[in-house]
């Protein structure tokens, strides 16, 4: 309940929750099909189109309401992959030390030598842009940062008495890793969740904007911004609405990270 008095955290959850609700409920509320052409291109607000029409004459409101679903599930999926793998790699490196640590951290260094977007683009060139593949690639490209942070956090735990005890009574390694060490690094894990969510959103929306993410004619916020960017003067809403949604989503993720970081600084 103390967390409820943390303004960053509350604001972050409200913002992310709001966007998730919008993406989930949007398709139910949309007045038109997102792909139906119902007006001339780039028409302003009219009787049939509350927010006007887009570059092909489709309803901006309907496309906006449909456009978040993919981004939302993909961002959470990539975050989940990044954190699960990052925790597994980071904790294993800290616990086993020696050459395991050396090899795992060398792999992490290798990925850290690429900007995430460049890393994903390299593989997209060869493998195409199927949505599960993009989620996997984004998750993989965001994993090393989490691995490095969680390894650092786990290093402070692995030499504690209870871990030594678990080792001496020969508990299986996976039990020590996930039952003894993991619960003791939840603070950085929660902070990382917010950060990785923010970066997933940025990466996935950016890929769509560049044309290498979600493909037309599917409705997607990043894609909407790209499709309508040349008509900002006549039909700004088709760009401004998705921009606001993405911005609220990403800033919300960051506020969650900040909020958790602040909460844990106070308890220490």
């Amino acid at each position, binding site marked *: 309940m103390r967390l409820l008095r943390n303004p960053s955290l509350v604001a972050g959850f409200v913002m992310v929750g709001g966007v998730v609700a919008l993406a989930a409920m949007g398709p139910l509320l949309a007045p038109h099909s997102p792909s139906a052409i119902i007006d001339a291109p780039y028409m302003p607000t009219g009787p049939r189109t509350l927010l006007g029409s887009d570059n092909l004459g489709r309803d901006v409101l309907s496309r906006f309401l449909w456009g978040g679903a993919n981004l939302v599930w993909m961002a959470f999926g990539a975050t989940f992959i990044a954190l699960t793998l990052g925790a597994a790699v980071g904790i294993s490196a800290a616990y086993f030390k020696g050459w395991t640590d050396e090899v795992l951290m060398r792999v992490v260094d290798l990925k850290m030598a*690429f900007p995430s977007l460049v890393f994903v*683009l390299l593989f997209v060139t060869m493998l195409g842009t199927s949505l599960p593949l993009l989620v996997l690639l984004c998750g993989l490209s965001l994993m090393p940062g989490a691995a490095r942070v969680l390894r650092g956090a786990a290093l402070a735990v692995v030499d504690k008495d209870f871990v030594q005890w678990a080792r001496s009574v020969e508990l299986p390694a996976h039990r020590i890793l996930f039952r003894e060490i993991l619960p003791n690094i939840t603070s950085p894990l929660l902070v990382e969740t917010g950060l990785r969510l923010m970066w997933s959103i940025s990466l996935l929306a*950016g890929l769509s*904007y*560049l044309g290498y993410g979600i493909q037309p004619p599917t409705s997607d916020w990043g894609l909407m911004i790209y499709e309508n960017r040349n008509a900002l*003067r006549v039909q*700004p809403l088709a760009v401004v609405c998705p921009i606001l949604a993405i*911005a609220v989503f*990403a*800033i919300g993720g960051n506020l969650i990270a900040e909020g958790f970081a602040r909460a844990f600084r106070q308890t220490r």
Partner: protein
Amino acid sequence: MTSAAPQTGLAVRGKSVSWLGKRLAASLLTLVLITMLVFAATRLLPGDMALMILGKDATAESLAALRAQLHLEDPLWRQYTAWIAGVATGDLGYSVISRVEVAALLTPRLQATLSLIVLSLAVSVPLALVLGFATARREGSVGDKLVLFGSVAINALPEFVLGMLLVILLSTNIWHLFPAVSSLSPGQPVLHQLDKLVLPGLCLVLLQVTYLYRLVRAAVIDVMTSEYFHFARLKGLPEGLILRRHVLPNAIVPAVIAIGTIFAYSVGGMVVVETVFSYPGIGSALTQAVGTRDLPVVQAAVLIIAVIFLISNLVTDALAHSITPPGKGGQK
């Protein structure tokens, strides 16, 4: 005493040298692994590369010719060593789309990207110092909180969203000040076309300042709560002297250390920023080449970006290692 002092100095220097040696060796290993990953990503993955490039309508002869040109029939290790030997001598192959040498294609692009980053840093660093000082001295005030929230929000935004917001604000809907698209005229030095640099430059400056100023702010607050700062005040030293002697050197340290990080961060951000503003840099070259599956260009661009990244991180570590005082986790 006198005999001990130079010894410790030497010992410290020896440790530094061996630290640098280890760090260089690790970077070299990473560099080799980078080349292998880039090569593997474009060769080992499923799919006939020649078919992928030429499309399904390609004739058998043209496919065979392209396979020969790309050495696709050779064993993999020979393809890799041939590619590496080429890379080492600056021969990056030919673009399969424009048939131009990749090196000739990417050199002006790289120059354009690096000049924009250096120009934006020349604006960001002093700006971050001023902003960091100003907000640290008013820590907790409304202005400080507003700037802090603004910087956090800007940092959270995807780069293309920030770019589009600038376009809406400065070049179309609200004010019409700068061209939204910065296609440079070829053959003219970048520095003579400054108006076209404004929007992508501003975008980069915003990304850099919002990160850098927070480091400066934290450092200044650190100094201003320290005992030696209070002591200097109690001694009655003039404010200006305290700022110059105590606060400024300590506030510059994190900014200098972060330069490499900022540089690397900018190179990554540029990929999207350049595409938003059609700025002809290495990032937009990469995104275009991905679309046309121009593999030699993709390979070269990814490799160049990764090497810049690697060097920036190395410089950051070396600076941090040499500047950080021993008591704060520096060389011991």
